[in-house]
């Protein structure tokens, strides 16, 4: 089922939101006129495609929550932003970076999933930009958003004051194409894998795939969806005719499909260790210390996430 997103019927609604948006953006501009924000550093990874590579770290006030890779694609009609970062401050710095490249309007803000390091910058972008995400994204951000705002408060402090939970107004059931004028982006929603709302963005002109957190490099993969789903998705992703990938965490760009190999090795190890521990009757708490322990030296932030991944994988695989 391939859908093509029609920009035309949107226009009348967009006019209204544009007016509201102008008012809102004016307020926002006034509030923040004192602070001159440094644009995010960006790498050009292909013609008209730019990426800020996030720090391999946990979100904190010191790093603006800028730990995920965020980027944008510039077309003849306008810009598509792919993920907005871990704070409105990061989102604004991304917008400043966009403005160094082009004056074209931001037409689309695409969120690759619901995690805070990818969506907390949304409020830096206002209508008439259209927010786009997986069909599961509205549910996930609305359910989890208030919890994330509370649980990240100790680490992020007042940086979260401006964060707004903004669900997408256009959702992708399976596939959707967005026309930027001289280039077409293909968005695809995936089964529960890294999370329950994963979405990829493929630029046919350059062969660059924005994988969101379906691809991790250096940063240990984080499992918040389904380990079996993710491994299945990896096999399907490998067949996409991409030339390079922008991972959700790691370098701004990496060769395709080789970029899938490290996380595939990790997830397969995690899966087989959990299956073995389940078979042996080891309780989940003890199993979370043991599963995938052999992968430790290959990943950053291993201690922060491996036990959590093992807990999630174990509780899923128990039902096989």
């Amino acid at each position, binding site marked *: 089922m391939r859908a093509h997103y029609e920009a035309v019927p949107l226009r009348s609604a967009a006019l209204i939101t544009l007016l509201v948006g102008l008012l809102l953006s004016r307020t926002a501009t006034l509030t923040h006129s004192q602070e001159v924000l440094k644009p995010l550093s960006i790498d050009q990874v292909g013609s008209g495609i730019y990426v800020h590579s996030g720090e391999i770290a*946990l*979100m904190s006030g010191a790093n603006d929550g800028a730990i995920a890779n965020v980027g944008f694609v510039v077309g003849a009609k306008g810009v598509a932003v792919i993920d907005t970062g871990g704070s409105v401050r990061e989102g604004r710095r991304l917008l400043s970076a966009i403005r160094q490249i082009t004056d074209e309007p931001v037409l689309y803000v695409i969120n690759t999933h619901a*995690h*805070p390091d990818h969506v907390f910058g949304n409020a830096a972008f206002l209508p008439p930009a259209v927010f786009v995400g997986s069909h*599961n994204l*509205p*549910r996930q*951000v*609305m*359910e*989890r958003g208030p*919890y*994330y705002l*509370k*649980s*990240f408060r*100790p*680490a992020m402090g007042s940086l979260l004051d401006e964060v707004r939970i903004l*669900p997408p107004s256009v959702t992708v059931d399976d596939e959707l194409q967005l026309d930027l004028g001289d280039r077409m982006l293909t968005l695809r929603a995936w089964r*529960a894998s890294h*999370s*329950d709302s994963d979405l990829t963005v493929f630029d046919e002109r350059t062969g660059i795939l924005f994988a969101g957190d379906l691809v991790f490099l250096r940063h240990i993969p*984080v499992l*918040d*969806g*389904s380990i079996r789903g993710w491994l299945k998705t990896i096999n399907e992703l490998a067949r996409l005719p991409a030339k390079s990938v922008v991972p959700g965490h790691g370098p701004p760009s990496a060769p395709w499909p080789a970029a899938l190999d490290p996380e595939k090795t990790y997830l397969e190890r995690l899966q087989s260790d959990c299956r073995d521990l389940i078979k042996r*009757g080891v*309780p*989940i*708490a003890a199993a*979370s210390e043991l599963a995938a322990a052999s992968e430790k030296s290959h990943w950053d932030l291993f201690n*922060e*996430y491996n*036990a*959590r991944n093992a*807990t*999630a994988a174990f*509780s899923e695989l*128990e*039902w096989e």
Partner: protein
Amino acid sequence: MCARPVIVMAFAVAMSWSSAQPALPADSNDSWREIANNVFNGRPLADGSQLITLEMAERAEDAAIVPVTMRANLPAGDTRTLRSLTLVIDENPSPVAATFNVGPGVAMISTRVRVNSNTKVHAVAELSDAKLYEVDTYVKASGGCSAPMANNAEDAAARLGQMRFRQFIKTTTAPASAPREAQIMIHHPNNSGLQRDQVSLLYIPLFIVRQLRVWQGDQLVLEMDGGISISENPNIRFSYLPNGASMFRAEAVDTEGHVFWGEWPVEPTM
């Protein structure tokens, strides 16, 4: 048997929501006293540190699935037995995670809970002397992307009510009457009722397993009256004494009145 704990739980939800806006007392002991008074009708709680243990990791790695184990460790010669264990997660929206009434010989219960924020956790045991004994621990909620709510909505609907029962066979030369362990699992989203539907902005209704019972032959081994803090796909591992019966049976009832049940033959020891 189960009606009262559910009412208590609903009351606890109301309590915590109504008190969410004004500043909560900073001293977590105060919230525990208030909860304990409500749940145990003002009955005194004695120090249980010599009789029961409560095992939880210091840090909740996955906020949606935090393993917890409670054990009765009565000293040798103590003739009292365990009647029930109540698990309370003080700072959760509805603090009473579950009450487990147990049959003869049950001395260990292990399950998985949701932890919303840094919190004290209490286990309260009632022994056959009809007295209550408490122990506590402190759990830090993990940051990161983990969130204490159900994840895979489609999967949950398709497999609602599926049950699994595992018996852990000890390959030692332990006699057939020695304690053994078993695990009951039920596929259920256990929605907390605290999440809003994004379109209607109404709260998604409470949809949880409110009672789960396991029998060994005709003897009730375990009865859980569950609350919203029990993780998606409730999962309970417990110790028991074999009574010579040939079958295990389990029955679960959820808040929409669904009744799920299953039967499994007792596996021989090796």
